[in-house]
């Protein structure tokens, strides 16, 4: 297809427009219950953003990392301290700087990736997870010497206007997620992304073709941690509305890993699909438990069943479709297209013959 605007095809622009209309106009008009914003849409956007971070390092660069929640914690607490100590920076400025601080940690803990890969790297990134949480927990300065352990997040104020209603917070998350998603798509399409993928597919070959492993891997870790940091700050300020290191434990890292893998490795839309699935499925399961069995099943059993299903799905996807739900969606679309060829397809096939 011919690019219409910069290197984007008509299809890309239509997709973007549809997404924007849906999220900016349709959702705010039709969804009025606060529950949807506070418990589903806002965490969905935040976690999808973190999953994009995980995608960059795992799906695009092929480095098995398991420390997303650690970087999220770094971002969240950096945000808290920046707003507290450097109020002149403003919300957006703090968000960017806290992302950069998380990126610093990403570089530090990404360095072992130059030497090791696979499970070895996973252990090295686990160090970041445990170290960052411990550091925040043990040094009172990060928590402003708050003894209760849970700190209330400050209100979001942008250009003097408070953003405290669920709808306003949703728009904040939406704006940040949109900008960063577009950036990630651009990076993935450009030379940056091609370098990442070259390293993923065969690092030695990539190196001998002149791709600097040091630069590419460290870059991927830094950008990934930046995304996780920003996502963590949003997660704490818009969703949790409080900061506590426990919220960013290893379980959250695993959750993001699941979102990334089930959604589809190496795809941006997979991050959104995976995050939606992991977030909505427990809600659905609880609803079934309450409405069909009328609470006859214990809540702990439901959460165990949910775990079994996630694990089972992971195995099934690894066996039948290692590229996850995004690929599944692609396959369905492809099948649909071959069944009912659209007019443009017929035209193009005709023009090829002549």
């Amino acid at each position, binding site marked *: 297809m011919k690019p219409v605007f910069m290197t984007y095809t008509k299809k890309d622009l239509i997709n973007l427009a549809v997404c924007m209309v849906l999220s900016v106009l349709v959702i705010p008009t039709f969804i009025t219950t606060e529950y949807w914003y506070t418990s589903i849409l806002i965490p969905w956007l935040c976690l999808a953003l973190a999953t994009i971070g995980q995608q960059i390092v795992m799906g695009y660069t092929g480095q*098995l990392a398991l420390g997303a929640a650690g970087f999220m914690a770094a971002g969240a607490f950096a945000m808290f301290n920046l707003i507290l100590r450097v109020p002149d920076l403003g919300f957006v400025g703090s968000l960017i700087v806290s992302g950069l601080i998380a990126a610093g940690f990403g570089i530090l803990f990404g360095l*072992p990736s130059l*030497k*090791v890969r*696979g*499970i*070895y790297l*996973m*252990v*090295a990134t*686990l*160090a970041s997870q*445990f*170290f960052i949480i*411990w550091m925040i*927990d*043990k*040094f009172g300065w990060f928590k402003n010497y708050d003894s209760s352990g849970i700190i209330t997040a400050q209100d979001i104020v942008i250009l003097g206007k408070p953003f405290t209603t669920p709808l306003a917070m949703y728009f904040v998350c939406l704006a940040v997620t949109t900008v960063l998603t577009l950036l990630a798509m651009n990076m993935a399409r450009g030379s940056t992304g091609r370098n990442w993928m070259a390293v993923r597919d*065969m690092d*030695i*070959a990539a190196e*001998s073709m002149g791709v600097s492993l040091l630069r590419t891997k460290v870059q991927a870790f830094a950008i990934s941690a930046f995304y996780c940091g920003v996502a963590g700050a949003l997660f704490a300020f818009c969703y949790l509305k409080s900061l506590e290191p426990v919220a960013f434990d*290893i379980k959250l890292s*695993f959750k993001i*890993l699941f979102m990334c*893998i089930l959604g589809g490795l190496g795809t941006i839309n997979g991050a959104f699909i995976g995050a939606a699935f992991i977030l909505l499925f427990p809600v659905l399961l609880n609803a079934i438990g309450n409405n069909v069995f009328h609470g006859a099943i214990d809540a*702990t*059993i439901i*959460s*165990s*069943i*949910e*775990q*079994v*299903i*996630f*694990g*089972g*799905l*992971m*195995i099934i996807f*690894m*066996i039948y479709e*290692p590229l996850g739900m995004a690929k599944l969606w692609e396959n369905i679309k492809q099948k649909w297209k071959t069944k009912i060829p659209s007019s443009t397809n017929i035209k193009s096939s005709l023009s090829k013959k002549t």
Partner: protein
Amino acid sequence: MVDELLFFMEVLVGGLLAGTMYSLVALGFVLIFKASATFNFSQGAMVFFSVLAFCGFMQDFNIPFVLAFILAAFLMVVVGLCTERFVLRPLMNASEDTVLMATIGLGYVLEGLAQAAWGVEVRRLDLGIGDFPVPWIADNLKLFISALDITAGLVAAVMIIGLFLLFKYTKIGLGLRAVADDAGAASSIGIPLKHIMLLVWSAAGVVALVAGCMWGARAGVQFALVDLALKALPVLIIGGFSSIPGAIIGGLIIGAVEKVLEVYIGPFFGGAIEGWAPYVLAIFFLLYRPEGLFGEKIIRRV
């Protein structure tokens, strides 16, 4: 001075013995890695699953100790059987990372099943061995060493020697090593791949059960066992993934270093550095000796 030295010795010995507990978990990882070159991330979940089943049999059905242990071991063989049939066989030709991710999924399944069947509350496991200093050693050597630690050390030693002999001198062991080297070539000369896999996973399951009993007697049978098992990862990195002695040495190093650091350096940073110290130690090992102390050097070609 003598008191300080004694205190240091006590910390060191306590750490070393606690390290054998890590070794027991790491042993399960090594068994599977040695025979199939797959990294079984669900080993921690297997520890949790097996010991919870063991407790469940004993406490919910009032089955006597020995019978419950045999039943739990049998259950782990069934788990091994199902894993081979439904996870490993379909993934025979998949890449290492894919299998690794599938075992993460398997871990989730096992954790969920265990909790659905036996509940989420912490259970006490009484092995009849107290977690308190042995009076005889305390009197004669002035060292306070827990009886449970000593038992764990002995159990680990017996298992290591047993497994080592199995790998080195039996026909099964030879088959295991052949499969690990090249599964395709091994099956083409008639080594039954299915049986080997089943055997290895069952053995890893029983090792997990033993490790779970030791950990459960100390910290209670609870979900935190899964996280504890994550600490077996640095042990493996230090010892090497495919070496049984490596698992032991790695465990000892991690146990000792962790305790000594915690006691002597921890107070300067507010304590609880045990949580991450093993992983950072593992990173340093990775930078200088990525294959571990006893591992085989991996050479990758384009």
